[in-house]
């Protein structure tokens, strides 16, 4: 299951819990890697301010998550991350990095990634089952992760916006699996539910800090 990183016990990790995600599953995996992650509901705490990494797990609806983040003052916090802080969004926590989503009305995101989250049936050439559930291999990393989602971002959109990304190929369609822009990171898959590949993901991500 991998060695505990040298800096594991020193890295301050905050997991956002606004009743929209499986925060305990993420915390559990990080604990097994030797990290001490704190679950936070509100952004106005010292732990949030002093954190090195902020993680937003996601099992939920785009609109519900944005409203819950607003209610608990996370939108302003995430818009103004300090230079040393990293943000990692998982699933819908990743989708809120985009400008907006087709999931629900008036679904505005953080606009870190200037592109739109669309229903999978609007991804170019997508003909598979919806929701898209299962294990898919990323084209660049060659790792297999667990995905479960009905909305996503079309890789053809992203290529024009100068963002680092990886993607999965389903038939002829390409769906973004992870993005990075500055200190904002996001993954469409669930590393906390991807077994050994998930452990490797978190180790690599947190070792870079």
């Amino acid at each position, binding site marked *: 299951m991998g060695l505990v990183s040298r800096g594991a016990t020193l890295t301050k990790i905050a997991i956002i819990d606004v009743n929209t995600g499986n925060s305990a599953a993420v915390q559990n995996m990080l604990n097994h890697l030797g990290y001490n992650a704190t679950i936070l509901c509100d952004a106005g705490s010292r732990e949030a301010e002093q954190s090195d990494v902020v993680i937003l797990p996601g099992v*939920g609806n785009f609109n519900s998550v944005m409203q819950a983040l607003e209610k608990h003052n996370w939108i302003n916090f995430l818009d103004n991350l300090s230079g040393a802080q990293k943000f990692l969004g998982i699933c819908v926590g990743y989708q809120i990095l985009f400008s907006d989503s087709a999931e629900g009305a008036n679904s505005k995101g953080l606009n870190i990634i200037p592109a739109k989250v669309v229903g999978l049936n609007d991804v170019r050439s997508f003909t598979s089952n919806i929701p898209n559930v299962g294990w898919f291999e990323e084209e660049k990393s060659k790792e297999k992760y667990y995905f479960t989602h009905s909305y996503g971002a079309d890789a053809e959109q992203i290529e024009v916006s100068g963002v680092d990304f990886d993607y999965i190929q389903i038939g002829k369609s390409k769906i973004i699996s992870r993005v990075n822009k500055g200190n904002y990171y996001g993954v469409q898959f669930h590393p906390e539910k991807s077994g050994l590949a998930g452990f490797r993901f978190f180790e690599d991500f947190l070792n870079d800090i």
Partner: protein
Amino acid sequence: MTFRCIPSLIINGPNFVKGQQFKNHIYVGDPNNVLKIFNDNDVHEVSIVDPFIRDLTKQQIALLGKAFSNCFLPISYGGGVKKLSDVRELNKVGAEKFIFEIENIKDNDLTQTVSTELGKQANILHVPFLNYNSGGLNIRSSRSLFRRSIFLDWSYIKDICVNFGEVIFTDVRKEGLRSGFDQNALTMISSEIIGQQPILYQGGVSCKTDLKKIRNYGFSGALVGAAYLYSSKNKSVNVGFFDDDV
């Protein structure tokens, strides 16, 4: 996409049990140990159903949470989920998909609420059938004392399926027997249902070849119980895992 091979586990109080045709259950293991073994085998996901429970208690959720903490894989849970608070509590301790019986769906707005809060993919429909014909399926009923089954026609089943992220069809006659599957049943389900959301099959799987055949019918995955729990040649419990890689 990987064809998902999903250990199917039945829980009764603090124990995993296994029977045949959902009857005559016997103890097969402690949830903490069994889930850890499946986790260490890096299986695709696990499914846990409690057909014995009436209402979820805090103690049962705590027990499940402890077992889930050994498992870093997708977990679906069914049984005793009656309120949104049940779903939220289970989600917090590590389950992200919730299984609902088709006979309990009518007039049940919980699945709609779950869909709004967690997304459609959090809802799984379970369709346990006793037999079938060109008109529909005879569904096993556990709600009525007097009727062993209820007949649902294909159009009704299809209408319900669209509200769920995944659907599991279980052949009750084959459950726990490791005797292979009914090819005509799979042909019927495949032609009537497959096309929209992921469809999974359960009942009678005994080997890799069965899994490969089920995949070829267009199913997204299969739930496997006895063949994973009794993976040794004799009938003693020996937890193991195989997938459709033949």
